[in-house]
């Protein structure tokens, strides 16, 4: 896969997750309610976090299988 494209994809993942984890989005779930027995905010932050890791892993591992040569940009 194109290295430049991949760098951009990673950057987007990071920025998107960043936006989801700060004000104002965070204020939506900023309530003492429990979701499935867990505080909503806590559950939300961990969910975004898991998705962030999963996306990164998926992207990197897919790349790893596809190409293993050219590592320069």
């Amino acid at each position, binding site marked *: 896969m194109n290295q430049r494209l991949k760098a951009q994809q990673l950057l987007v993942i990071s920025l998107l997750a960043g936006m989801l984890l700060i004000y104002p989005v965070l204020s939506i779930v900023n309530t*003492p309610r429990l979701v499935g027995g867990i505080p909503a905010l806590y559950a939300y932050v961990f969910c975004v976090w898991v998705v962030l890791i999963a996306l990164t892993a998926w992207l990197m591992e897919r790349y790893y299988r596809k190409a293993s040569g050219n590592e320069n940009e």
Partner: protein
Amino acid sequence: MNSGVVIGLSFGYLALLFAVAYLTERRARTARSLVNNPYVYALSLSVYCSAWTYYGSVGGAVTNGMEYLAVYIGPALMAPVFWIVLRKIIRICKVQRITSIADFVSSRYGKSSLPGVMVTVFCLLEAVPYLALQLKAIASSLDTLTRVGSEPGLYPGFILRDTTFYLTLGLAFFVILFGTRRVEATEQHEGMVGAVAFESLVKLVAFLAAGGFVTYGIFNGFGDIFSQAARVPRLEQLFVVREPFGFANWTATIFLSAMAVLLPRQFQVAVVENLNEKHLSKAIWLFPLYLLVINLFVLPVAFGGKLVFGTSPVDADTYVLALPMHFGQHLLALLVYTGGFSAATGMIIVTVIALSTITSTNLVMPLVVKSAWLKRRFADNFVGVLIYSCRVSMVVILLLAYAYFRGVARHYSLLSTGLVAFAAVAQFAPAVLGGIFWKRGSRNGAVAGILAGFVIWLYTLVIPSAAGAGLLPARLTEEGLFGLPWLRPVALFGLETSDYIPHALFWSMFFNVSLYVGFSLFGGQSNLERGQAEIFVDVFRYSKAGENTITGRGTAYMPDIRSLLVQFLGEKRTAQALQSFYLNNASVEVRTQGRADARLVSYAEKLLAGVIGAASARIMVASVSKEEEIRIEEVVDILKESQQWIRLNKEMRRKSAELQRATGELQRANHKLREADAQKDEFLYTVTHEIRTPITSIRAMSEILYDNPGLSETERQHFLDTIIKETERMTRLITQVLDLEKYESGRYQLKTRRQAVDLLLSEAVAAVKQLIKERNIALEVRIFPGIPEIALDHDRMIQVLINLLSNAIKFCDAANGHITVQAVCHGEVVQLTVADNGMGIAAEEQTLIFDKFYQAQQQRRDKPLGSGLGLAISKKIVQMHGGNIWAESAPNQGGQFSHYPAGNTPFAERGPPNSPGGRNLLSVET
């Protein structure tokens, strides 16, 4: 709990660390490295989770709820971007042999020592309290474990009876042992990395065990804890982000922790200790995963602790430990203690090693090389100065941290000191990030930005927290400096925010970035700065050339450069380094050793930079070479010119593709012609040279014979004999030149006919039989069955075989010569091998020996020699047969030449099979 057990466990664990480090280091040298994989790399990154995390997170969660998570969200968000930013930094550091964050800044901004010194000082200022924090965590966990009722436990009393003091000494011993073994700071500390990765595992397992116990042992799972907590208003408040902590603080903390990769310890494990860039691709998701997992149970433990202990005065920072103790789980408590001890010691070990490198290369070395007196004083023992300054700074840093812990640390909570340290290193961010993405970023900008950022950091963070702890008069924060309200450290210029951190972050970054950008945009750069900027920003383009990037053009002599290297690297390492340089630059370098090649000078500078830092290396190299201005600019100009040329070219091509193609063809043809012409010139020149040499001997000896009638008979005989030999040498040379010319010009037509390989071989062997007998060489001919007849030019192929055989005779072992001639068949391809047991052909010479007039190094030293054309002719002949000829050898293990004449089907090139004893091989494939 019995304090003897706890103390024994602490020192036992320390001993285990030594064992792990030792084992890793031993394995690292045997190529079955334990640390050369992405998993260990990710674990070593997790040194990020210090004791602050381990104990402090729970404390933080009890006071401010979600706040503690921000510190992990930051790096987790940053992790995908590591692949862009960190990979670039790693590449730069490998190419430029940079060993620390201070060296990085110094090298990027014109190899100037001032930025490096600044970064060093600030790192020390930031790190000592942070280290003290870890010692505090160890001390208070010891205290919690050994406390009986209200009786105080092992909390520090008199210094010599303080367990923490001895543990500090133990750690000092560890870092000296595994941190300063080698002089070159660029060399990785595999032992240390192994130990740290091991510690990351231990702390993860221990924390998960504690969290699991609290969540499922004491309570009934997550739901139970949270629903119980929801019924306590004081705890329910913690479910949400609230003022005074607030979103501003949350965002600021995320930002600060995202920059934490610039912490000296993170830089050390992430960049300096990185063994392979590829490890990043797994680490960028493994590292956030680690952070996530270790944080899963923080909130449950915090709420659980609060629910269990209620209002009793148990410090929330110790809940992880106190809960198992409270429920009588002593073994679990010991495991948890070990985990916390791991977190603290891991951080201490890496930080101290990183700081000592920074101090010795960016503080001590610039002093030594800049002061003429110090330089003279230590001239014979730079290596000693380096190692000792490194060791001394390790001990000093650890003792300072211990003193700080004893004197000051009790006034601060775990969390605040950590964030203050983060805010300090965040000040390097503009200079570092600007440095790798923005070529205009200048030294003055970096210096001004960092300095301003630090002044503000000191004023708005350190002063208020010191005042808050009662170490400074509170008047200062309440009324402002000189009683000026707009200078109040917590509300600078009247900016009121909810907390110190966002306030300090905003102002420090505002001034830092503005000054950095402002000075860079409105000021200039020196040539060296511009060159370094080019290399840093475009590292992926330049580093393709590997070590070859020329960063300067100095005139220096080999002996000077060599002795400089020996001073810092020692004789052995210098020899290895030079050898590897010549190996990588084989074809060009061999001849120009006398005056050091510009590439070599630049390579030497980089080697030195790995030992003493970029700025000092620059000074040392400049002291032995005459710099002719900085030439990187030229390199850059050439590069830019060629880029412009390519653009122009593209346009032209668009305008008239046809014309362009024609021009291109003409150009190519012209180029080819000129190249051929130059080659011919060079060839003629070499031939003349080769002929002049024997003529010189002949003339000299003839003149001697003529002018000295009184020579003895033996002398006369000797001279005459030599004259005849030299004449023969000349004749041979001329014949071969003519031969080669005939083959190369294509005038020679092969006269092929099919014939049996065994006959061919025995004919060739018969021709040299006499010589073999004279030299008492054992000859073995092995012809494998089933070899087909092949079409070849009999006379020419015999010529090739005889040439290979006479080389084998010439170079096989003098006393116990052994030559093997072998024919094997792989499908359609026939391979002939001539192997000897001589000293072999060095790997870098195995292709060169087929060049015209090339003579292997060894051969040049031991006359008599051939014309230097035999193998070139053989190669030409084999090529005319459509085959391939090559050499294989392990030096000092004999040489083997092999050979593949073939049938009339097309032949695939393939590696020759292992020959008897795996010796030297020169192969021909037709």
